[in-house]
């Protein structure tokens, strides 16, 4: 944004470098460089997310390909050669000789996929219902917000468990394992929409009385256009902040549900499922089956959480 037309023209001519320049000059980037916590947690999250995306390239074996497994490799401790085959594994192997490092990479894919999808679902649903409630008011508002109140009476993990249980009951037995991931996304997303709806509704109530909304209404724009094209872009920043913090919570919620055995099935194990499986070997001394997935989950949840906290402080200090 500049007030001189000439420099604006120049900026348009060299759009790419100037945009990078602008990003580097921004307050946001300055705050980022000044905060070691933000930089470390951003680096850790990025590393984990990238290694999950490129899991097939990084992983030494595909843990779900039965031909790559050798039962003789079972229970190999980390960084020590197996007694029978002489193979070594970075993080050891589980009971079936699966490389723990590879299962973690693939497990992280499921954890992150469920986390992102659940938050996306919650954000879309929350924005939709929040805009409706805030813009129209009246009985629509009362209905949506009373529903939210009822749901808020209960802890969200309990709501998620209940939705999972009901959805599991509805799906036919033969499809349950395949559907489990989608049911999980639905359950966590539905348990999490309320906070987005509340924030969006509050912001919409403020925005809808501003002049630009009146102007848009005056020239005959439809309510859906006004809500999506005019109001929504102006209220996105708090939504983004809550979404980042929600992502950490969704990852933990997914891990908790899977750990309890009401989440990702053993055929598609997430980090929580791996921890559930590993807990069984704690007493017989095979600590690595539990230890490495637990550490990965912690690193993932902590780094995303800290990034979210930092983002909140920078973008919207009032939410603190």
């Amino acid at each position: 944004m500049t007030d001189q037309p000439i420099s604006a023209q120049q900026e348009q001519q060299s759009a790419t470098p100037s945009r990078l320049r602008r990003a580097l000059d921004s307050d946001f980037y300055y705050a980022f460089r000044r905060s070691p916590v933000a930089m470390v947690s951003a680096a850790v999250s990025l590393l984990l997310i990238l290694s999950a995306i490129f899991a097939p390239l990084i992983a030494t074996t595909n843990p779900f390909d039965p031909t790559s497994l050798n039962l003789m490799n079972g229970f190999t401790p980390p960084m020590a050669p197996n007694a029978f085959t002489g193979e070594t594994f970075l993080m050891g192997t589980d009971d079936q000789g699966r490389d723990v490092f590879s299962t973690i990479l693939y497990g992280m894919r499921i954890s992150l996929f469920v986390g992102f999808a659940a938050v996306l679902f919650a954000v879309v649903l929350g924005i939709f219902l929040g805009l409706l409630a805030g813009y129209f008011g009246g009985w629509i508002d009362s209905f949506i917000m009373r529903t939210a109140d009822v749901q808020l009476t209960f802890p969200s993990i309990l709501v998620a468990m209940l939705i999972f249980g009901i959805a599991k009951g509805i799906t036919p037995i033969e499809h349950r394992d395949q559907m489990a991931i989608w049911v999980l996304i639905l359950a966590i997303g539905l348990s999490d929409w309320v906070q987005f709806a509340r924030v969006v509704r509050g912001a919409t109530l403020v925005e809808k009385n501003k002049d630009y909304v009146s102007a848009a209404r005056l020239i005959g724009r439809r309510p859906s256009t006004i809500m999506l094209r005019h109001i929504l872009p102006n209220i996105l920043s708090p939504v983004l902040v809550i979404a980042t913090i929600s992502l950490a919570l969704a990852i933990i919620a997914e891990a908790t549900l899977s750990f309890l055995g009401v989440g990702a099935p053993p055929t598609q194990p997430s980090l929580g499922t791996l921890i559930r499986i590993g807990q069984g070997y704690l007493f017989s001394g095979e600590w690595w089956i539990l230890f490495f997935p637990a550490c990965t989950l912690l690193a993932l949840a902590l780094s995303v959480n800290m990034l979210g906290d930092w983002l909140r402080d920078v973008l919207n200090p009032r939410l603190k």
Partner: protein
Amino acid sequence: MLPFILKRVFQSMLVLVVTGAIAFSMFTFVGDPIDNMLGQERTMEDVERLRARLGLDKPIPVQYFKFLNEAAQGNFGVSYRQGREVSEIIMERAPATLELAALSAIFAVVMGIVLGVFTAIRRDGFAAHFIMSASLIGVSLPTFLIGILLIYLFSVELGWLPSFGRGEVIKIGGWTTGFLTESGLKALILPAITLGLYQMTLIMRLVRSEMLEVLRQDYIRFARARGLSERVINFRHALKNTMVPVVTVIGLQLGAIIAFAIITETVFQWPGLGLLFINAIQFVDIPVMAAYLMMISVMFVVINLLVDILYAFIDPRLRVSAK
């Protein structure tokens, strides 16, 4: 005051009506219990007999009124999985959860207030800084990982405490208690800490910030000027005035403790209601799920209502604004 209470009671009833409808629709629309209960080798007669016994042969409105009527009497029918009365199973499991929750709540409240006051009074000390950073990690750790960590430390490595179950319990009437035997008490320690840790850090941080707020007030400075001892100032004048928000949070967290007991009970294989609920979800045992849902919603609604009313009594401003 009265309109405020009536309004809250009405809202609470609404919550119960909604959860009741959800619980009933679970019965009606989710899965076919006959499929779940009878195996492959079944005759049509078996199916019909079971259908009649579970009351599934009646029309839906009839089933709904029957459900409401029975639910109000604490009767949720027969568990699909265990083939026993749900109310009987719940009565059997309830003492384990209630004892665990009570001990966790006491742990959370006592330790939370003590550590909160300590970190507020010695805010710049090394110990206070250490406790505050430790609590930050405690809040971000998922409950089940804390449980596993404690099991690893105290059961696997040190071998001091049992890692699962309730130990020996003594039966007193319909109640089983683990408070009276050594193994029962030992078995309580790890689950109670796991369950109460999150609430403890929450109460601690709240007490700390409230204390810091109150200690800045003029009447504290005046008390100092009067030459009162630090102990009297901190506990008589300051702590007392931090209690309003603390009481509210403690009240609301009581319900959360019972709900989060689900996770702790699974980690420690604690034979309580939470484990019952998780197993019910895994096996789609609808009567048990519905009963648990109704029970926990009544509990949450009652706690929320009591806290609101209590709050209105403690803080007169709320009464005025409600009118």
